[in-house]
Structure formats: C-alpha cells, structure tokens
C-alpha cells in the first residue's frame, strides 16, 4: 500500500531519554486515526516524528523509518522543509502569528513559500477558510489581527493555515485541549468533514473525542504502542489489559 503512513521500528530520544520504543504501525489514508494515552506516554512525540518536527528540539534524535504517502521522510537527502510542506500540523494552543492579519496568517505558508500572485492567495485563503468552516464568520474581518479572534476561531485559523498549503496529511496535537465544549464540537465536526480528503492523525487526551471522530485508535503507554485497532473494537473489546485499565478510567 502506497498511501497513508507506514511507520517501522520508530525510536525517539530527548538527549539520553529514550521516549519512543520500536513503534510500528500502519495508518490508513483518508481516514482519522486517534492517538490516546496518559500524559508523557510519547503520543505527541510520535506525531512530531511523522513530520520531522521532533528533531527541531535541541538534543532530540530519531531512528527508524516513516513513509508518508509513499515517501520515506527520513531517507538521506530528504529535506525536512519539503516533508513539512506536505504534512500540516495543528498544535495544542492556537498559535496564529500575532503580527499578521487573519488573511496573512492563512496564506503564510504559501507566501513564505514564494507564492506572490494576489489572485492565487485570495483564492487559497477563501478555500482554506471555507474548509475550516470559518469563512462566514471572518470574511469581513480578514484584515484584523489574527489574535483578535476568539480561541476557537484562532484554532480554526490555524487549521486553515495548515490546509492552505494543501497537505496530504494533517497532524493534530490535542487541538481542542485549550477550547471550550462548543468550540471543540466545531473542530470535531470539521475533522469529520475533512477526513474524505486528508489523512488525519489526532492526538487527544479525551477518549470520548477519540471515539467520536476516529476510525482507528492507537493506545500509547510509556513510549510503547500497546494496542492499535479499529476504534470501536479498541474501546468496547480491548485485547490488552493495560488498554482496558486506561479506557475504563483505572489510571491516567
């Protein structure tokens, strides 16, 4: 299978701390995959390895292979900048660029990637904002500062910003953890709409959220992938005792 994300024997370190242990998993294309687990289990590190953001942290190291939509992202000679252009990322806290307007935020990836034509940027901004279900709310405020919007809107600006460069994969690192339930519901709705066009991997603390939005779920514990499978199966009939303990709320 060429599409999706194929991870083989992935290990990651922060300095001497070995934080991911031999992860192997195949993530289906054009579907939503959730990554759950208690704090510090390595789930964020895992998705940061998929777009080579892990190595941005001083002292961080990766070994193993990751193929995203057919490309080995850790092959020698592969430019991490090119890898990240194809893989969008949304972070825990909304982080629009404070010196840019809503419009400039959304097209930042294109513009700093060298696209100059106004018509192309206009079109991309509208399309991305529509995809992020934000167009109707902000179409009259495109010139306003990106940080003047509400938290939920800011997060959707960040999603639009990631979508504007037309990535094949969207990584979401606890995208709703700083949002209220209404904003969270909007983002979840959005995820369900986007899944037909994108491969989505979402890290979440919230098991109900994983159950609501994902087809497959992986459970991480202490840097290991304990169990991976169809979401409904994993939540109703976990194979592993640790998974069962976690989803029934015995720890975490």
């Amino acid at each position, binding site marked *: 299978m060429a599409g999706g994300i194929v991870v083989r024997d992935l290990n990651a370190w922060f300095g001497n701390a070995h934080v991911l242990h031999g992860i192997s998993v195949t993530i289906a294309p054009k579907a939503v995959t959730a990554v759950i687990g208690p704090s510090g289990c390595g789930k964020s590190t895992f998705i940061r390895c998929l*777009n080579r*953001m892990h190595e*941005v942290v*001083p002292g961080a190291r990766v070994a193993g292979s990751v193929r995203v939509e057919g490309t080995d992202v850790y092959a020698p000679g592969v430019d991490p*900048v*090119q*890898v*990240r*252009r*194809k*893989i*969008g*990322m949304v*972070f825990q*806290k909304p*982080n*629009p*660029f*404070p*010196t*840019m*307007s809503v419009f400039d935020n959304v097209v*930042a*990836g294109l513009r*700093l*990637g060298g696209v100059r034509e106004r018509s192309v940027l206009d079109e991309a901004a509208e399309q991305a904002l529509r995809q992020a279900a934000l167009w109707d709310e902000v179409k009259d405020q495109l010139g306003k*500062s*990106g*940080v003047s919007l509400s938290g939920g809107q800011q997060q959707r600006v*960040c999603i639009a*910003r*990631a979508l504007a*460069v037309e990535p094949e994969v969207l990584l979401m690192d606890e995208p709703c953890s700083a949002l209220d339930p209404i904003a969270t519901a909007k983002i979840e709705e959005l995820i369900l709409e986007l899944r037909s066009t994108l491969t989505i991997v979402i890290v979440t603390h919230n098991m109900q959220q994983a159950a609501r939005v994902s087809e497959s779920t992986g459970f991480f514990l202490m840097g290991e992938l304990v169990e991976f499978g169809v979401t409904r199966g994993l939540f109703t009939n976990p194979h592993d005792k640790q998974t069962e303990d976690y989803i029934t709320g015995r720890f975490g």
Partner: protein
Amino acid sequence: MSWLSALAAALVVLPLLLIFGFLLWQGASAVNVDFFTHLPKPVGEVGGGMANAIVGTLILLALAAALGLPIGILGGLYLAESRDARLPWLARFLADVLNGVPSIVVGIFAYTVVVLPMRRFSAIAGAFALAVIMLPIVVRTSEELVRLVPASLREAALALGIPQWKVLLRVVLPTARAGIITGVMVAIARVAGETAPLLFTAFGNRFWHQTLDQPIAALPLQIFAYAIAPYDDWHRQAWAGALVLIGLVFAVSLAARVVTSGRFTGVR
C-alpha cells in the same frame, strides 16, 4: 509603603524635569530661526546658529545606525537562536564588556583603525565610533526580545514547511520588532549625546562639511566648544544646543513609537 514608592518614582523623574526646565530657562531664548539655519559666527560677532552641527549630528546618527543596527540585530538573533553553547556565551560576555568600555577609549580605537589609515578626521570615523558604542546595546536588547517570542510561533512556522532562515526573518523578527525598535531608540539616544568619542574622530567643523570623509560638526562637540569658551553669547548658544539635542532625541523616540504602533505588534 505605597507613598514611599510614589516618592521614589517622583525622585526618579525629578532630575529629568529639572534638567529640562533648566535648559528651557537658559537656552530657550537663544533658540530661534537663525539657530537652525545659520552657521556659527566668527569670534566676536553675536548671533549665528548651529545648522551645520544639527545636520552633522543627524548624519552621524544615520551613518552609525546604518553600520551598527544590521550587525547588532542579526547578532542578537544569532545569540538568541544558536544551539551552540560556547560561542554565544563568549559573544555575550564580550558584548557586555564592550558596553562597559569608556566611550573615550572607543574614540581612541576609532582613531587608530579609521582616522590614522585615512590620514584625516571624518564623519565616517565618528559614525564608526558611535556604531561601536551602539552595538552591544542593540545586540543584547535584540537577543532578549527574540527570546521572548514564543517557541510555539516558531514551531507553527516550521511545521508549515517554511525554511528556518525565513522563519527567523519573516515571523520571529517581526514579532519582536516593536521591542527591538525601542532598544534601537535607546541606543541612538545614548550615542546622540556622546562627545568624547567624536573629539578625535568627527573632530568638529565650524563650516558645512563637503563629503563624508571630511571632519563634520556635531551638536555635542559644538556644545562642548561653546561651553568652555569665555563668551556669554556662546554660553547661551551652548544651552540652546543642549536643548535642541534633547528635543531631537525626544522627537526620534516619539516618531519610532508612532511608526511601530500602527500595525499589529507582537512582544514589547
């Protein structure tokens, strides 16, 4: 306790108010159109102005900024972003030492490396000396402000597939811009009044300078020369020069504030 700190705050502002008031009292009468448009008169003649010194100071500041700011800001960016441990530590330490070097020593340095090889005093030599004094201030404030830019913005930009250098120039620096400009203004204000490093670099000039490789007049030098002279009229003009110098620094700071308050700003 609160009245005590209020008193302390008042005592902090008091010297500035006193200086400004005294300058107004002593110098305001000599500030007129002639002061801004005329050259100094020969000894014995009353009147004249410091037009050449005002323009000279502006030119020296502009040249010094052109030399010092790009190096200082990029240097600060490097110190804030570098992952290497030793070289930034050394550079930071040396910048702090340079900040403490008496300005007259910087003047001697500029005399040695610019004036002697060129075999003449010049605006360039003066600007070089001022740039050296600005450098550590600009480097250190730029570094501090770049550090204040949240890592999450860097990550957001990197994750968009933007190359590191573009992330720094187009996302990190603009976010730190407002604060860096404040630091730059502090640096310019600091060197605007420097006299000692100009004594044997820019040297001063009672006439208009013709080119930048010639001696150039500067307000602090003119104030110094007039203040130690035995003529009452020159003393009045020295006071007026000091008043104009302070007004100049004030105007430049205000302009920078206005310019940077327009767009969305990041950290201050």
